[in-house]
């Protein structure tokens, strides 16, 4: 178990950076992580191997500014691309006149839908989104035309010179009306309907609580806007440098739309400035390649901030109606829910987001029966897709509020109620799938609760430490403190029968100075999560060498799948492990020959191979004189099945759990909140790089706090009202609570090194924990996030009462 505490934000304000206390977070009480290669074990450990908080190879360049993000890409001869976007949320395109734009000096190309040589549409799961709108636009910001010009300002002027005549069409903006309204797309208005029936769906409990909940539209708000550089290649194909989450799925969509064979489209990862799901869909990929091919010149595209807000998918807004049944002792009997997600104008990954919302609608609890009805629909609102937490964030906000309601109705401690129902290994979730791996739900809850609460307010506390902070709004006596808890379950990897895999190539050779070094080639998109560090750590430990070079992530090697679903440590880490294993075997093979011991079990140690029986040894460098060793391996996870007509099936690979306890100070009169502390316990399997895990936990909590009290894309009649960081606010260092984290390390069977993905859980239950804490401080019901100041000042009081159908309120 690893416990780390990060300095409170007030510490940061007085000058010392929030630091991990108690020296570097070390994994204590756990055996060293086993290297790959089951029989042979490394006796002495290589520096910066698995289990250490090895430095990121891109850490220093990122801090000093030397790191090149995709927005820094440059070519001497490049043109600048720009997109004309629809100002309407739903309109017919009557005519487009590009003559004035095309005639402008410095404008090299103006392209419309008819200039797309291949498939007219793209999409992650359903190709329903036009590359360029032809006859109708379905959301504000939909791409209508693209231009390339010698100068970015010229490109901007050119798109303004394009005359488009629109005829506005009736708006479909209420998701509740989508299913019964005339289709706004040939594929219809319903992306997916997913019913789930589990156990005795007519069962009833002694106590019933119900509630209606809403989640607003959150944005991933990465700091590096969409950007790319495309270069025409000699074979008539195209070379694309791009910040993305999944190179190969981009490549396939680009190739289809360009009518090129996939091998003529080569993608290389540009430096990624954050992703969080928003880079999983195609944004400018096809556009920039089209322009490069049409002009025969390199073309760069770089979105403005406002364009970025319109140019990528967001988190699905949700409306949820819940009813929980329990016995008088708190045992959950049945969970009923209706879940409606607004998918916006195009499908993106909506169908998979809905599956997550439905499968995890009851949370990390054992429940005998469930009746869940989920639907995700098309509207003229901005398209929604992947975002950290992927469908689980929405339902977790609702089921955790329900658990608090239930606790109140039973007059039971909310923590006690959760512990009483917590899933254990061997239990089934509501899809009927049994938990065959680790499930330390009790442990994460206890770990979160075990952290000391933040100190009581001091009389002489500076006003800046109170809610309202810099505004000096609150007086100590106006402030009330509250604490809340929330727990989550998240699937790791892709689900529902998808045969997911990752590829890695590892090459071991000696440098001109005679030192052995390895090169790892993977298409895994590094989006900040630390795969680059992990790939080095795995290779060091597996091959007993320190120097590990990372080949640029590109499509020159097989797919690594998406950097999403908390999957890359497991999937691409596993692929690197397999490739290292093969190289490792090759090394031992050679060593047996050199040492003349054909049958001895040899051991790889840092820099050499040793025969433990005789003590004879041979240096790795010497073994490589016969030439490099190279292996390319694919790693597949255990297969999953689809969900049947009742939403039942073993659809998921693995599950991760987290608990968050939030402490807030609230000024109830003004409705202002300061989140003081988040204490968390997280099920990580194994912490392969504890510092990287803590980084994921802190970052995820920042996004969870953001959804709780700050972040929402405001959409009115389909139009985004706040596409800027002036109006869409995310937490800064001043808003961040202190984070106290305990890592629960129970190695997951079947996972490479026993490690679970850690990126999403911190985002999921931190939001409901913060809201629960605000409810605790104010007694308000607060059934919608983000919670606004006026919801606290004016919101419906009386909080979380037991409601209709309750035969007893304890």
């Amino acid at each position, binding site marked *: 178990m690893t416990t780390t505490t990060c300095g409170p934000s007030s510490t940061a304000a007085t000058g010392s950076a929030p630091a991990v206390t108690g020296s570097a977070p070390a994994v204590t009480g756990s055996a060293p992580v086993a290297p790959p290669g089951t029989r042979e074990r490394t006796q002495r450990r290589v520096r910066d191997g698995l289990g250490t908080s090895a430095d990121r190879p891109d850490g220093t360049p990122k801090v000093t500014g030397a790191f090149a993000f995709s927005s820094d890409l440059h070519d001497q001869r490049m043109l600048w691309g720009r997109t004309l976007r629809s100002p309407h949320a739903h309109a017919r395109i009557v005519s487009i006149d590009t003559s004035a734009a095309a005639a402008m000096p410095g404008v090299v190309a103006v392209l419309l839908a008819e200039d797309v040589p291949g498939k007219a549409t793209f999409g992650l799961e359903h190709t329903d989104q036009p590359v360029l709108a032809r006859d109708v636009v379905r959301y504000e910001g939909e791409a209508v035309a693209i231009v390339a010009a010698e100068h970015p300002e010229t490109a901007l002027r050119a798109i303004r010179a394009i005359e488009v005549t629109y005829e506005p069409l009736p708006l479909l903006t209420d998701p509740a009306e989508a299913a019964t309204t005339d289709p706004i797309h040939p594929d219809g208005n319903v992306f997916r309907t997913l019913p789930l029936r589990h156990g005795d769906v007519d069962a009833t409990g002694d106590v019933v609580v119900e509630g209606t909940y809403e989640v607003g539209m959150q944005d991933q708000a990465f700091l590096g806007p969409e950007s790319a550089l495309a270069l025409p290649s000699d074979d008539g194909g195209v070379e694309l440098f791009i910040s993305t989450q999944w190179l190969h799925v981009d490549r396939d969509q680009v190739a289809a739309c360009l009518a090129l064979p996939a091998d003529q489209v080569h993608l290389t990862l540009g430096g990624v400035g954050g992703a969080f799901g928003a880079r999983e869909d195609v944004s400018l990929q096809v556009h920039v390649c089209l322009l490069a091919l049409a002009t025969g010149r390199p073309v760069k595209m770089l979105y403005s901030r406002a364009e970025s807000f319109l140019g990528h998918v967001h988190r699905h807004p949700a409306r949820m109606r819940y009813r929980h049944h329990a016995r008088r002792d708190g045992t959950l009997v049945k969970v009923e829910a209706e879940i409606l997600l607004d998918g916006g104008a195009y499908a993106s990954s909506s169908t998979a987001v809905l599956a997550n919302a439905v499968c995890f609608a009851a949370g990390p609890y054992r429940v005998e029966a469930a009746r869940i009805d989920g639907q995700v629909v098309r509207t003229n609102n901005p398209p929604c897709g992947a975002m950290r937490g992927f469908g689980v964030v929405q339902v977790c906000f609702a089921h955790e509020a329900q658990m608090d309601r239930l606790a109140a109705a039973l007059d039971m401690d909310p923590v006690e109620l959760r512990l009483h129902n917590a899933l254990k290994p061997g239990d089934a979730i509501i899809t009927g799938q049994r938990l065959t791996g680790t499930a330390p739900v009790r442990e994460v809850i206890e770990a979160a609760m075990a952290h000391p609460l933040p100190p009581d307010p001091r009389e002489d*506390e500076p006003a800046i430490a109170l809610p309202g902070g810099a505004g000096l709004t609150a007086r100590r006596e106006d402030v009330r403190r509250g604490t809340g808890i929330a727990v989550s379950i998240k699937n790791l990897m892709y689900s529902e029968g998808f045969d997911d895999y990752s590829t890695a190539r590892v090459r071991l050779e000696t440098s001109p100075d005679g030192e052995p070094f390895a090169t790892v080639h993977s298409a895994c998109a590094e989006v900040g999560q630390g795969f680059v560090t992990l790939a080095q750590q795995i290779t060091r430990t597996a091959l007993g060498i320190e120097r590990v070079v990372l080949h640029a992530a590109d499509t020159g090697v097989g797919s690594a799948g998406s950097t999403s679903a908390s999957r890359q440590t497991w999937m691409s880490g596993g692929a690197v492990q397999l490739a290292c294993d093969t190289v490792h075997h090759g090394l031992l093979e050679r060593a047996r020959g050199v040492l003349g011991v054909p049958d001895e079990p040899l051991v790889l140690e840092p820099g050499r191979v040793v025969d433990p029986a005789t003590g004879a040894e041979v240096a790795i460098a010497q073994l490589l004189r016969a030439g490099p060793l190279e292996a390319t391996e694919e790693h597949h996870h255990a297969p999953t099945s689809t969900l049947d007509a009742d939403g039942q099936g073993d659809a998921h690979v693995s599950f991760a759990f987290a608990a968050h306890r939030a402490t807030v100070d609230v000024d109830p009169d003004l409705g202002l909140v300061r989140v003081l502390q988040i204490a968390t316990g997280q099920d990580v399997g194994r912490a392969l790089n504890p510092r990287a895990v803590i980084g994921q936990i802190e970052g995820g909590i920042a996004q969870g706090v953001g959804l709780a009290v700050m972040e929402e894309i405001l959409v009115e009649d389909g139009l985004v009202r706040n596409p800027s960081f002036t109006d869409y606010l995310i937490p800064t260092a001043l808003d961040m609570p202190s984070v106290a984290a305990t890592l629960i390390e129970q190695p997951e069977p079947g996972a490479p090194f026993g490690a679970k993905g850690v990126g999403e859980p911190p985002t999921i239950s931190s939001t409901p924990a913060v809201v629960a804490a605000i409810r605790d401080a104010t007694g308000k019901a607060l059934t919608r996030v983000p919670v606004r*100041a006026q919801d606290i000042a004016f919101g419906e009081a009386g909080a979380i009462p037991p409601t209709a159908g309750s035969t007893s309120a304890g």
Partner: protein
Amino acid sequence: MSSGFTIEEPRSVDEALTLLAQGDETVRAIAGGTGLSLLMKYGFFEPATLVSLRHLRSSLADIEVTPDGGVRLGAMATLRDLEDAPIVAERLPLLRQALGRLATVRLRNAAQLGGAIAHGHPQMDTPPVLLALDAQVQVASIRGARTIAAQDMFLGYYETAVEDDELILEVRIPPQGEHRATYRKITARAEDDWPMLGIAALVATDGGRISRARVALGALTDRPMRLPDVESALQGSDPGSDEVEAIARDAAAALDLYDKPAASAAYQRHIVAVHLRRALLEILDLGDGSSKGGR
């Protein structure tokens, strides 16, 4: 989008005023550029010529005590200069308090006092403070010099009484005498967000009684405003906390407000009532253990 512009860097005020006197509203002074560059970026303003004030700073950034005991603030002093000036700390703690929490230090290092007035953005912190301090703003053009009372300065959304050909040269704050004052604001979301409400309140006392009261609100509507009814209710009186609460409630009820994305009109009215009460309790020393803001 801008189709290109020139930057002039005059070496004297006269030269700057001549440049501004072309009768062309796309010729504009630029101080710290924090406000103007955003307007340009969004295409709301496309200048032909920007008149940089940077060479005028040496002569127009002084902060001095005037013979009558008031303070003279050079218009080209940055907000950070003012925040750091001992004279401001000593004589105008209200201003210092507001500046110390205005946006971020990056912004305060760049933005100038003249810009913080002429920008005319309704959500700024400095305007209500200048109203509460009875500031007098000295402006000049080739037509001559004049003084505009802070009271008459702010006319609406991005609109002030400063004419296109005029430059703000300095701000004079009359002597404030014995007084207590506070600036409180509400940033509903992020810590360093723009205010959604700013309250500057000041009372000068003579014996037990309030001899002068100034209360100004910022960020609510298209311009900052004084609250004359509150001021006259306080003036000459010695209110207790119940009266203060009533004064604040009545003031809030009388406001003409409209819904905004982050705050309904009802919520805005509510926070004025709560916040104004707290501000007055603080400066009247009626707060039961009120936190000492801004010291």
